[in-house]
């Protein structure tokens, strides 16, 4: 674990200094993402301006949702910047270069790149949090802890779909819809989803662990919810690692037919 943290830190510094060479680009990407998030909030600002409340959600609740989701997404993308590229890496045979190195493969792939736009997300979420009524030192501590757990749910879930490439060949198009689906479901008032969809969002597409449960913990600390979140993080991360390891066995034994363009 300590070794992994050290490796992550090294890659983080390395990536950052490489990106600093193109400072203008760095700033554009980071600020671009902040702007993007602001524009997304515009929609809710207009809607709540018109209807006041949607079920039990008001504009303040939406701001908290955006804060938590962008922080969780930001954490996942800053530290596991290669998450969305895994399918490509497996497809293009770039995986081989990781297999040759004496590091645990999955974590090595994930941490070897940071996404700059995500840094913007992270900053945006943190700043946004201070505009909510929960901005206090204990509140902030809880925010960070639940965001890290939520980012594990998100990361694990994406690893599963990215690893599909091991089993079914090119799954890039499916894998790329996944992050958007979680985000789209998460960035809505959770109570609009009812019936079977609600169950799906607690299980198959774990959006509820990405927004609803973290924000209810921040609003009012509840040990049961916290345990739910921790368990979900462990399960999805575990499933992700399992999917990758099993897939890697298939890859190493050479059964994988890599379709190349």
């Amino acid at each position, binding site marked *: 674990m300590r070794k992994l943290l050290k490796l992550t830190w090294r890659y983080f510094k390395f990536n950052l200094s490489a990106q600093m060479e193109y400072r*203008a680009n760095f700033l*554009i990407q980071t600020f671009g993402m902040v702007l993007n998030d602001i524009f997304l909030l*515009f*929609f809710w600002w*207009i809607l709540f301006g018109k209807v006041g409340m949607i079920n039990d959600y008001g504009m303040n609740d939406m701001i908290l949702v955006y804060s938590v989701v962008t922080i969780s997404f930001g954490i996942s993308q800053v530290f596991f910047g290669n998450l969305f590229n895994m399918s490509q890496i497996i497809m293009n045979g770039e995986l081989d270069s990781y297999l040759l190195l004496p590091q645990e493969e999955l974590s090595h792939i994930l941490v070897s790149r940071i996404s700059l736009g995500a840094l913007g997300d992270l900053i945006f979420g943190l700043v946004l949090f201070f505009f909510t009524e929960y901005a206090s030192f204990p509140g902030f501590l809880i925010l960070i802890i639940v965001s890290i757990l939520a980012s594990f749910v998100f990361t694990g879930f994406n690893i599963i779909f990215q690893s599909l490439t091991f089993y079914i060949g090119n799954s890039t*198009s499916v894998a*790329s819809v996944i992050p958007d*689906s979680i985000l789209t479901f998460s960035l809505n*008032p959770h109570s609009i989803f009812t019936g079977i969809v609600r169950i799906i969002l607690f299980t198959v597409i774990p959006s509820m662990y990405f927004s609803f449960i973290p924000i209810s913990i921040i609003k009012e600390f509840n040990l049961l919810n916290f345990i739910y979140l921790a368990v979900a993080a462990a399960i999805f991360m575990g499933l992700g690692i399992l999917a990758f390891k099993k897939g890697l066995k298939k890859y190493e034994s050479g059964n994988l037919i890599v379709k190349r363009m």
Partner: protein
Amino acid sequence: MLMKKIKKYMTVFKISFVNDMMYSRNFIGQFLFFGLFLFVYSFLWRTVFKEGEIEGFDFVKMMWYFMFTESIMLAKYSFHREMSQDIKTGDIAYHLNKPYSYMLFMYSKYLSSSLMKMVMNLLFGSLILFLALQNTPLNPLNTVLGIISSIMGLTINFVFFFLIGLSALWFEENTAFQFIYSKFLFTIGGLFIPIEFFPEWLKKISDILPFKYVLNAPAKVYINGLEEFLKVFPVQILNVFIWGGLIMMLFKAGTKRLNINGG
């Protein structure tokens, strides 16, 4: 003679259409996104419109509104990237010694590509919504008028894409302009939420700016038909002429100062 001049652009339109058909499998990914958005927003709008109409919209109209704006938004062929690249490398010059207008050539290509995508999006979206809602504000006249207004919307968008592409003459890095423009469409263009929902002051600003005539106006023509069409179509034409004239002048001035690198 004039017929021949028109015919060349029609051939560009046709050839570009056939060329794009070769990429048709790329539609699958786009349809997945489109379907997902429609699905998620159906929950939101069902809750929001539980109590009844807002600003003339109800649940069914709102779903169709979003389908119409999104069908245009996802259809736009982003030729400005290629154009910026052509300007930076100087390759744009190869278009200049052919007997056609570069702008009209690009427009034919753009419209062909975008129209095909838009029609595909409309067919897909309408099918999904009709199956899910069993209800549609569409009738034959509205559909025809809506498509005409959408073509004008796409044309206004073309003018701005062309301007963004042209900006490569003066700015080495013009992705920021692309980004800002698309965000304008997103918000005061009325992609997710109609202009009618805006506070009064913002509504006024949106009415003056051209962005709502790309997405919001055509979508409302599909829903409200002739009355809406008569209101927005002249303004769309006006926008095309004003902004189009401006870029034509800029383009003329720009080609004079083209710096082309070559051996």
